[in-house]
């Protein structure tokens, strides 16, 4: 992966939020590498009801590219993506 693109991508997508967003369920994928966080997200979203928000914790930086792509192709909304000391917190809203 080209690190420059990664930084640009990160700057574009990360919205700084001071207070964590309210979520219905938390999925901790710490330590797990691509594609496991996405596989687990897909399985978790399936079990939720429309309008609920899933909080995903991850430390594989690949998630910064993977989650927006997955949300886009699956029609769910990525509400926010926060990075703190190499750990990522993402909020996905189930749309249907």
């Amino acid at each position, binding site marked *: 992966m080209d690190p420059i693109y990664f930084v640009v991508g990160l700057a574009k997508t990360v919205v700084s939020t001071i207070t964590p967003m309210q979520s219905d369920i938390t999925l*901790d994928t*710490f*330590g*797990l*590498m691509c*594609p*496991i966080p996405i*596989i*687990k997200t897909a399985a978790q979203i399936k079990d939720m009801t429309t309008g609920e928000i899933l909080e995903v914790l991850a430390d594989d930086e690949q998630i910064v590219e993977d989650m927006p792509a997955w949300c886009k192709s699956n029609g769910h909304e990525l509400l926010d993506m926060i990075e703190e*000391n190499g750990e990522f917190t993402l909020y996905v809203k189930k749309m249907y």
Partner: protein
Amino acid sequence: MIYLDHITASPIDPRVLEAMQPYMDEHFGSPVSLHRGGAQARQALDTARGQIAGLICCEQKEIIFTSGGTESDNLAIKGLAQAYMKKGRHVIVSAIESHGVLYAARTLERQGFTVTQIPVDTDGIVHPEMVRQAMQNDTILVSVMLASDEIGVIQPVRDITEIAHEHGAVMHTDAVCAGGHVPVNVQTLGVDALSLSARSMHGPPGCGALFLKQGTRIRPQIEGGIQEAGRRGGHENIPAIVGFGRAAELAQVQLPDQMIKLRQLDQQLLRGLATRIPGLSLNGHPSKRLPGHLNLMIRDADSESMVLMLDAKGIAVSIGSACASHASKPSHVLLAIGRTAREAQSSLLITMGASTTETEIKEVKDLLPDLVEQLRHVAGVAV
């Protein structure tokens, strides 16, 4: 052959072999495949996971398959420490852990962690109070084995877990030698991670598992695959895992009777030998230990000579340290309980299994005293 070295290796149960057979030829599919061969393999994996979860009272998804007890220990020690390193870098292990734990802890030291080794008393017990004293603000992980391979001593893991949790540390226990031999219940123990091995319960070699409590973080040590929910990469060893599951299921059923039988036999042998051999004593706690497990210190009788002489008579036993036999150095466990190097090298490990009979035990009881006397005579030792 009278086989009394079950802790080092034990035969695969014929029923385990029978369960494994179809997965070595007929059902060769991989769980990652989308076709029906894959579905069959996934089903086999789930069944085995359920059987092992049943043995230790956990959820199926809390089982991670590995290549054996040593890998499970490595995954637990390095994987947990690396996952919680932002909270702190202090790790506590006991002095009598297996090398899988001790060497993994040594690697952590090279990575900037601090490791405290808790000593044991002369019975080989790790005192929970000593663990409490060793706890620091930055302690993230405690690992104390459930039962020792070398001296068979069973540790107060539940009490130690409580102390670890009071201080916010995660708790791992190596249950490789306990699993299938004494009841192991992760709910009662309260541990966050627990290592198991198939071969120590009449399952196939090359297969083990790590119980990881839901919600506990771990850093995978074998990377590059989606297997085991990404926590342990590499194609699963399906035949061995199927065998492991069956072995766990059988162990669970046989456990109560087996424990009574082996305890009776080890008491019988210990009493018989103690009256016939002067200068014999048990290494480790007299009652808090695995049934059928005797580590005997026989003063002025060299371990290796005893093993070879018994072998010539058709009896297979091990020298006091099952693991370090080839390094020709005294066992770290025997030294930790206060034995001298010479005493450690005069120790004999007798471990019984499902096939052990009273007749066999009687034969050892009759034969060993004479062998010891011969050895002492040759060495010019009067006892």
